[in-house]
C-alpha cells in the first residue's frame, strides 16, 4: 500500500511519508517504519529528507537507523525468513534447525539468496516459546518447525 501513489521522486515520496507522521510525539521511529514499509529499506539518501522535515540532525537520524535491528539499509529478498535463536527454542533444537536452514539456503544469517528469493536472519524470541522451534516466514509465525517442516515452508515460497 502506498500513501504517495508512487509518483514524484523518491525524495518527494519520503518527504510525504515523513509529513504524514511529523505531528506525532517522537515521530522518528514511526517515520522510519513507514519509510521502510513503503520502500523496503531506508536508503542513505532518505536521511537528509527525514532530518529536514523533523528538524533533526542527519547524524541523529543515522544514529537511530543503525541502532535498531529492524531498519535495513540494503534491500531484502522477496521473503524474510527469521529463525528464533532464543533459549526456549534452543531447548527444542533451534540450533540444529538454524544449521539446516543455512545449509539448505547456502547463506548465513543476514544474507540473501542469489536469486533474491529469501533473506535469512536470526531473531531472539517470537513469543511462541511453548511451541518451538519457531520460525517467521514473510511476517507469519510457524511453530514446531523441524527441518522437514522448514523445507516445506521454503517450498511454498518458490
Amino acid at each position: 500500500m502506498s500513501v504517495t501513489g508512487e509518483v514524484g521522486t523518491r525524495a518527494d515520496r519520503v518527504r510525504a511519508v515523513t509529513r504524514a507522521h511529523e505531528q506525532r510525539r517522537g515521530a522518528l521511529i514511526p517515520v522510519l517504519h513507514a519509510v521502510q514499509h513503503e520502500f523496503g529499506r531506508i536508503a542513505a539518501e532518505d536521511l537528509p529528507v527525514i532530518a529536514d522535515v523533523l528538524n533533526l540532525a542527519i547524524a541523529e537520524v543515522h544514529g537511530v537507523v543503525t541502532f535498531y535491528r529492524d531498519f535495513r539499509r540494503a534491500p531484502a529478498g522477496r521473503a524474510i525468513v527469521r529463525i528464533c535463536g532464543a533459549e526456549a527454542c534452543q531447548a527444542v533444537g533451534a540450533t540444529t534447525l538454524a544449521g539446516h536452514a543455512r545449509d539448505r539456503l547456502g547463506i548465513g544469517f543476514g544474507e540473501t539468496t542469489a536469486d533474491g528469493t529469501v533473506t535469512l536472519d536470526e531473531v531472539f524470541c517470537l513469543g511462541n516459546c511453548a511451541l518451538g522451534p519457531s520460525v517467521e516466514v514473510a511476517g507469519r509465525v510457524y511453530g514446531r518447525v523441524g527441518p522437514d517442516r522448514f523445507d516445506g515452508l521454503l517450498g511454498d515460497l518458490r
Partner: protein
Amino acid sequence: MNVPTVNPARVFVPRDAAARSVGADEVAERIAAVAALAGREIELVRTGSRGMLWLEPLVEVATPGGRVGYGPVTPEAVDGLVAAGILDGADTGAPTSLGPVEDLPWMRRQQRLTFARVGVVDPRSADDHESYGGNAGLRAALDRSPDQVVEEVVTSGLRGRGGAGFPTGIKWRTVLGAQDELKFVCCNADEGDSGTFADRMLMEGDPFTLIEGMTIAAHAVGATEGAAVEGYVYIRSEYPDAIETMTAAIEAARARGWLGAGILGSALEFDLHVRVGAGAYICGEETSMLESLEGKRGTVRPKPPIPALAGLFGRPTVVNNVLSLAAVPWILANGGAAYARYGMGRSRGTSVFQLGGNIARGGIVETAFGITLRALVEDLGGGTGSGRPVRAIQVGGPLGSYLPVGQLDLPMDYEAFSEAGALLGHGGVVVFDDTVDMSLMARFAMRFCAEESCGKCTPCRVGAVRGVETIDRIRAGEEPTKNLLLLEDLCELMTDGSLCAMGGLTPMPVRSAVKHFAHDFGVTP
C-alpha cells in the same frame, strides 16, 4: 446420543499467534467450509487462547452445559469431527475430545484473575468485554478520588510484573504527587525475554482489559485533577498480531467513549496510542523504552531522576508492564484486600507463569504466588516434551538463573528466588532436558548481551564480548580453572559496573550455569 443443540452452533477457534503458528487459521477456515457444505449455520468466533498451548489448535463449541473442547485439531481432521457431531458438542470418544474446558485439570488448578477473559471472549468485541464483567474496575475507580485509587492498588500489594517487582501503587503515588500539566502512562509491552509470552497473549486475547487498566492509571495519577495524561503502549515489532488487536481495540474503545473526553460519562479524559518497537531487546528496559518513544536510540538513562518524576519528555511518567496494568481492573472491581489474599510473603496476588522450552504441556498458568517450581514443571507441565529427564530450568528470561532439579521445590516468590540467587523476572519458565550443554547456554547468555547491549556501559558492551571469548577458551580446555576465575571476575565487574539489568544481570545465567553444572565446563565441582 442425545445432545441438546445450540443453533446456530457457536464455535470458538483461537486467533492467538501461537495457535495460528500450528494451524488455527486453516482449522477455522475448514470448519466454516464444512459447515457451509452441510448447510449448518454456525457462528465462528475467533478468541484468544486458553493458554493450553499443547492442545492448540483447540476448538471449543458452546453447549447448554458450557463450552466443550477438541484439541489438538488438524485441518485434515475437521471433516471427520464435524461428521462425529462436534458442532453439537458431541463426545467423539477420541483423545482429542476433551469435554468441558473449564473442568480440565490444567484450568481447575489455576486462579485466573488477570487472564479470566483470555480465550473466552472475542478480543475485538467491546460488547463481549462489557458482558463478561469488563469496565467494572474502571467504574469503581471513577467513583473514587485518585488518592483512593492509588491506596487501593497499594493495599493490593501489586508489584511490577515486568521483573523488577517494584510496588505499583507506590509508583503511582509518586506520579500523582508530581505537579505538572502533562503526564504520561506508558505500558511496556516490549516482551523480549525468551520464555515469556503472557503480555502477547493478553493483548491478543483481552486487549480491553489492558486499556481499562491504563485508563484507571490515568485517573489515579491526576487526569481529573488538572493534568493532561496521555498513554502509550510500546509493543515489540515481533508481535504483529498483538499490534493489530491492540490497535483495533483502541479504536473500538474510542468509538464507545471508553477513551477520549468524558470517559463513561465522567470528567476523565485520556487517549492511548500504540507505538511499535524496532527489534531492540534493550527497549524492554524502562528508560531505554522512554528514549525509543522519544524517537531516539534506545540507550539506557541513569537513574535518578526516576521516570515517575522525569520520564517521557521529562514529564512525570508511569511505566508499567502489561500484566501489572491488566491486574488493576480486577483489583479495583474486587478490592485491594481481596487481591492481597492470594500469594505468599511480600508477593501478593496471582502471577501469570509461562511454561516453555522442552516441556510436554506448555502454556499459561495464572496462580497465586507460592506455587512451587516443581508443581509448574512436573504437575502442570508434565516434564519435558522429549520424555527425557529435566536437567535445567531457566526462570525469568535471558537474565535469569539456570536452576538444577535440586531446586525444584523453590516457591514462586520474589524473595525466595532472590535468596536462592535467582529471579522470577516476568514469570517465564524454560525447561531443558539432559541433552543440554550448559557451557553453551552460558556462552549464549554472553553472546545475547553482546548483541543486545545498548553500548552505554563498557562492562556490558565490551565485557559480554570478552565473556564469549573466555567461555570459548574454557570449552576448548585452555586452563579452565584460571579462565573460570577470570570469568567470575568479569561477571563481578559487569554486575557492579552496568547501569541497567542487561549488563548487571547477564552474569546470573552465566554464574548459575558454572555453579550448578560445573562438569559442562570441564571442571570438577
